[in-house]
């Protein structure tokens, strides 16, 4: 009965969404106005497909197990695609291709950690978690430690990590949709939020899984098509392709502008070759190692990724799903090598940065170029397709995050803590989960709108850092260390979270008014000389030189405007958010300090406190996580 009402509501939800998308006020976007209908058409097709899946899925969601874990009935192959869909956020799809297009080698090097992370997931996390877990991260911790304490600290950590990640996705999504098709930022955020709510609310994990699978397939298909178009002219020869990238004057000009003075003594060939060498983006090796640690250990502690392992029936299927996920995710990052370098060669780093300073538009602009350019039908169709995929990407990731946060509220806090382990009827559990979903969804939209214009890129790294410093040590030691107990987990969760967040608050990630003013002053000081140089080149007889100078002029205008805006933002302020004039902690990524601190806290806490239950249940936890005895009964309820 209940689901019939859901389906009706879903239909109305879809109707309600239409005006949101179609009546938005438009600003300038990458898609030219006469082709905007095409973009909406592609968007509509993808949304209709995912909505149909949700409609079908809504029939199958009857119990809490259906809502949180699709009843444990997902296969390894399906889950592998869903993990890829859950994980390949806009940050990795658009961000890494963009980084490669702007900084060459360093961008590609950055992508490696995102794949290696799954080794940790595969070797020590996926199978044991499947064997003893149920719906949430706290379920694993609560198995042998004090359930009430575990549910409280676990839920706090899950909500913290998800909120950081969610904020970055919502803000990134709003900016992305605005940049691509020119819909207002607020409307973009609301559209992402409402769509995601429709999937999760009605279809629970079943719909979320299928939305993630569809998105991952579209993403991989789009990338393969683009890579074929980029690489085919070179007969699929890697050296020939990269040789052409190195020879490209646009790439050489970008390297010259990145290097500054030292570039003056370098030949064009040397400048081009430099694009394939490390060091254009990452200047602080320790910081980069710190980031690598957060990625490699943090992925295994991300609640929305962990939750995916409860959707498969056995440890063997969990293992299989990681293998598929690694093949898809790794294959995708290898493709981004071609997307990034292809965009640098064909579109040009400066032209990409002129649309979005971070380079995030590299893949969409490459698609437009390959289709025939800004004024062609195919060019705009390809741009529309990639934009729609990017939009689906954000919605799918957001859906996974909201589900993870909602399960922490409904399953851990409401059922586990408030009802204290009493039996709660299934209908009531599902209702609690749906109410929690609406709360988290509304929160995501509110934060997304409130954080407009904020630099949230570092929040993804922070989410990984908290997951690596708090969740990962706690889950790992609960599963593998005999002496681990409630005291250790509570201390570990607190110390890990506080260390990661605290160090970030006193790091260079936060705005320091003095530093902003100094950086802007530098831009203003260099402006005159650059203008002079551009004016000289604008007078050149060579149209290529003039074109390059025009692009640089646009970029300079943007940089100066940004510097002015930055100064205006810190007007009258002397100290950062936490009252500092300069960073106390010089690294941008706290992982290298906070991860060892998290582990140390679990060790110390466990040795200082005593907990009979943790000790008594150790044989059971250890036997079950290794052998899967009664694993099928762990999902039954």
């Amino acid at each position: 009965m209940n689901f019939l009402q859901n389906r009706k509501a879903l239909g109305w939800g879809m109707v309600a969404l239409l005006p949101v998308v179609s009546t938005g006020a438009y600003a300038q976007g990458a898609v030219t106005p006469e082709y905007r209908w095409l973009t909406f058409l592609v968007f509509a097709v993808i949304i209709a497909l995912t909505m149909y899946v949700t409609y079908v899925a809504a029939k199958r969601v009857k119990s809490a197990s259906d809502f949180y874990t699709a009843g444990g009935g997902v296969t390894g192959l399906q889950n592998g695609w869903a993990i890829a869909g859950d994980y390949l956020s806009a940050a990795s799809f658009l961000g890494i291709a963009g980084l490669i297009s702007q900084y060459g080698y360093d961008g590609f090097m950055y992508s490696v950690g995102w794949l290696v992370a799954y080794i940790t997931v595969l070797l020590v996390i996926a199978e044991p978690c499947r064997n003893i877990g149920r719906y949430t991260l706290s379920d694993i911790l609560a198995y042998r430690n004090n359930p009430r304490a575990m549910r409280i600290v676990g839920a706090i950590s899950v909500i913290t990590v998800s909120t950081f990640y969610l904020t970055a996705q919502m803000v990134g999504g709003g900016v992305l949709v605005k940049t691509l098709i020119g819909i207002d930022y607020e409307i973009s955020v609301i559209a992402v939020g409402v769509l995601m709510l429709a999937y999760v609310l009605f279809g629970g994990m079943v719909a979320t899984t299928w939305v993630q699978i569809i998105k991952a397939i579209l993403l991989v298909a789009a990338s393969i098509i683009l890579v074929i178009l980029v690489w085919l002219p070179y007969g699929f020869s890697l050296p020939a392709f990269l040789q052409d990238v190195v020879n490209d004057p646009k790439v050489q000009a970008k390297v010259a502008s990145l290097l500054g003075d030292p570039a003056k003594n370098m030949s064009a060939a040397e400048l081009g070759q430099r694009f394939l060498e490390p060091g254009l983006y990452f200047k602080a090796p320790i910081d980069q190692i710190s980031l690598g640690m957060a990625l490699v250990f943090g992925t295994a502690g991300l609640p929305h990724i962990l939750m995916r392992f409860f959707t498969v029936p056995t440890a063997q299927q969990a293992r299989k799903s990681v293998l598929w996920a690694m093949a898809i995710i790794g294959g995708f990052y290898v493709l981004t090598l071609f997307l990034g370098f292809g965009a640098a060669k064909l579109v040009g780093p400066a032209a990409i940065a002129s649309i979005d300073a971070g380079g995030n538009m590299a893949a969409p602009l490459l698609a437009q170029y390959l289709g025939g350019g800004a004024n062609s039908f195919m060019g705009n169709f390809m741009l529309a397709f990639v934009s729609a995929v990017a939009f689906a990407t954000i919605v799918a990731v957001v859906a996974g995050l909201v589900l993870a946060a909602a399960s922490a509220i409904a399953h851990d806090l409401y059922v586990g803590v408030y009802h204290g382990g009493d039996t709660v009827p299934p209908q009531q559990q599902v209702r609690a989960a749906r109410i929690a979903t609406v709360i988290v969804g509304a929160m995501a939209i509110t934060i997304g709108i409130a954080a407009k214009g904020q630099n949230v890129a570092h929040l993804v790294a922070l989410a990984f850092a908290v997951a690596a410093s708090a969740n990962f040590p706690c889950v790992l030691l609960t599963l593998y260390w005999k002496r681990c107990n409630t005291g250790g987990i509570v201390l570990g969760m607190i110390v890990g979270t506080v260390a990661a967040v605290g160090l970030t608050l006193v790091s260079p990630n936060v705005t320091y008014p003095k530093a902003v003013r100094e950086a802007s002053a530098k831009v203003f000081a260099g402006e005159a000389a650059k203008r002079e140089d551009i004016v000289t080149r604008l007078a050149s007889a060579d149209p290529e030189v003039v074109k390059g100078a025009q692009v640089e002029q646009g970029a300079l205008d943007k940089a100066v405007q940004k510097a002015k805006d930055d100064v205006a933002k810190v007007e009258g302020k002397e100290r950062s958010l936490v009252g500092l004039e300069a960073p106390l902690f010089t690294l941008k990524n706290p992982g290298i300090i906070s991860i060892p601190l998290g582990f140390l806290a679990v060790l110390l806490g466990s040795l200082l406190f005593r907990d009979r239950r943790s000790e008594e249940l150790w044989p059971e936890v250890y036997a079950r996580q290794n052998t899967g005895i009664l694993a099928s009964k762990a999902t039954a309820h």
Partner: protein
Amino acid sequence: MAGPPNIDWNAVIADPRFQTLHRKKQGFLTGLMVFSVVFYFLLPIGAAYFQELFKMRVWGVINFGLVFALTEFVVAWLVAFYYSQRAGGEFDRLAREIAADYEKGTVTP
């Protein structure tokens, strides 16, 4: 939360087959994990401190650094494949044997 009382978990972990599984798995997982993490960090460390090596051209414009970064992908896949072969064969067989023996006595609700 606690499992059915009729499984003696202490007996399971004292079972010689479980001990064998535990010993083999622990050594294998630790070794593979340490190798993977060390191999991964060779990339940022190499890119920062062994720039001359990373800039050395090995195939047309392709340098050692690019080849090494691509190797990271291949090694990650090989580690995953190697693990799944080992786990899917020996470990799963032992785990199934133990699980089957101890579950036999349980009454399913």
